[in-house]
């Protein structure tokens, strides 16, 4: 299993400990440049940008821009990249990054064809790389590193892991957690697509053995069965940290795609009831409102004391 903390943080003694280099693919676009600046302000060590045809220039007068991922990786030895390219260029950009040696690829674009995601995943598997997304807000260790488009304000360093399919709900729920005194050790945006580079169970594997982890929050939504599979995995693994879930889309009509490509109930496949009942079976309470999450988490912690 991927040691996500080794990738994001490294080990004490590494020359780049807690300042791992990040390459931004598509750094000169409106979206890419906005979030590159935001990430730099947050303290993320953005070491290079890539935009074909703009090699040799500098972003913000400091970050060198390269024409290709190979050049950028050769020059910086970075293992992490974040991608801001139009969906139809996702597959090409993902292949380029992974072939250049990237081990953690955060794919922001929405509307990537499923087939392209699956192809990128096959290559990632061969090369031992991890893809987060597509259609993800990103991943962060609050107050240390942000590789994504999330605002800084809701997050605070702490000991709760938050896994979420939705971006704005990740912000909303982290905000509620922070206000209730629950900082986050890591937050991982899974993405709202039908096929996710990092599934909920993969993200669970990444966080379950974090030293000092005090709890976990899972923000799911209708569509697919990744919440059900996660609930089963939590039961099977004997994971005993206080865990709370939230599922969006209880009131959504069947057979309608609710904004996210993956948020669709077909028959009973993907229904909120199915997810809620599996979480209940795993003894994981499911909040009815985002603001109820910290309340339920506090309740679980009291019980486990």
């Amino acid at each position: 299993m991927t040691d996500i903390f080794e990738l994001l943080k490294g080990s004490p003694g590494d020359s780049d400990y807690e300042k791992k280099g990040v390459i931004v693919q598509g750094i000169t676009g409106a979206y890419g440049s906005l979030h590159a600046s935001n990430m730099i302000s947050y303290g993320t060590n953005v070491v290079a940008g890539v935009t074909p045809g703009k090699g040799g220039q500098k972003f913000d007068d400091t970050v060198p821009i390269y024409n290709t991922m190979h050049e950028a990786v050769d020059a910086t030895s970075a293992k992490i990249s974040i991608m801001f390219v139009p969906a139809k260029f996702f597959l090409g950009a993902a292949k380029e990054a992974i072939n250049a040696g990237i081990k953690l690829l955060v794919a922001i674009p929405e509307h990537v064809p499923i087939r392209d995601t699956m192809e990128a995943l096959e290559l990632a598997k061969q090369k031992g790389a991890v893809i987060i997304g597509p259609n993800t807000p990103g991943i962060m260790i609050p107050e240390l590193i942000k590789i994504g488009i999330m605002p800084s304000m809701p997050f605070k360093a702490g000991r709760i892991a938050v896994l979420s399919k939705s971006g704005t709900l990740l912000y909303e729920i982290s905000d509620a957690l922070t206000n209730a005194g629950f900082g986050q050790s890591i937050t991982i945006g899974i993405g709202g697509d039908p096929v996710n580079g990092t599934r909920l169970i993969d993200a669970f594997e990444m966080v379950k053995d974090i030293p000092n982890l005090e709890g976990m929050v899972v923000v799911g939504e209708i569509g697919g069965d990744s919440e059900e599979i996660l609930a089963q995995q939590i039961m099977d693994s004997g994971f005993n940290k206080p865990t709370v879930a939230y599922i969006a889309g209880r009131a959504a009509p069947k057979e309608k795609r609710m904004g996210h490509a993956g948020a669709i109930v077909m028959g009973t496949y993907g229904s909120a009831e199915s997810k809620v009942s599996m979480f209940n079976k795993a003894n994981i309470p499911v909040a009815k409102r985002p603001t109820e999450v910290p309340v339920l988490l506090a309740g679980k912690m009291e019980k486990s004391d």
Partner: protein
Amino acid sequence: MQLLEFQAKELFREYGINLLDSMSSTNIEEGRKHAKELGYPFVIKIQVPVGGRGKAGGIQKCQNDDEFELKYPQVMDLTIKGEKARAILLEKMADIKKELYLSLFLNRSKRCYTIIASVEGGVEIESVKNQIIKEIGLGEVSDELAKEVAKEMELEGKTADGFIDTLKKLSKLTIEKEAELVEINPLAIMQDNSIVALDGKFVTDDNSNFRHDELQKYQEKTEIEERAEKSGFSLVELDGNIAVVGNGAGLVMATLDMLSDNGGKPACFLDVGGGATTESVYEALTLISELDRVKGILVNLYGGIVKTTVVAEAFLKAYENNLIDLPVFSRLKGTESEKATEMLKGSRTKIFTTVEDAINAAVMGVKN
């Protein structure tokens, strides 16, 4: 996008999958011509992009002109799960020996295509017994695998050959069109042991539309959906009276859930996208202003990077241009929310600190 049955069957025909003779029409005059051409008996089938048609009375047998004149308008007038008839398909009656189930779908957790087949078809997939499930990767179904499935289903002779042929053609279609789901239920064994697709369900991966011009003719969008898409929004029309607007699909779904929990009835789901600008919120209000059933607007924005004042400007502009005269119940979280609240003082937009308060006010507001 879920295709209509007759559209799915057009694709089946193109790929050589056996079908009964059928013709689709959108009015009874056209239907009468088809009735004459096909000859009785046939089945009248409503064309809606949802399942459960049979139970809702959307599939009717027809033996003669009198029955046709009675049943065609009846079926045409049905609304199934909120969907009105897009067309009527007349299909020859079949002499069926047995009904099978066959589908290929994109297995989201396994990240590959998966076959589900059963000798006990004709009911909804949840009730299909003795399912044979095969994960097949990203490529087409091989001859060996198709034979294996037929064997496990205990099909023999001509029936087995027909099934193997159908499965391979269906897999070619699924892969080439990048479908998320293609289902034939029932897939019939006829009296002469041939295999025929009696129904067809086809769900596309809309994100791959740019590679599939040939599927664009099946796009059925209302004008309002088309405009929403052009603005980069996701819009789902619902039948209540409170329009729900927000940024981010998860947040808008959560708002729908909370509104419904509080007895409110959502008129639509409108996600303006992760970000929000004065222009996008103004355009969202423009779309909503055209939905007659809307009595109030509930706005739930979590503007992390977005300034809420930018959103407040959109409301003010909408009032200034007399775009809306509806009450707006809004929760704007993010930077400069105090300033935004100040800007909207005295306007029809009420700002609330929590979404719960905004929802309660909206539910009360549309009642009065």
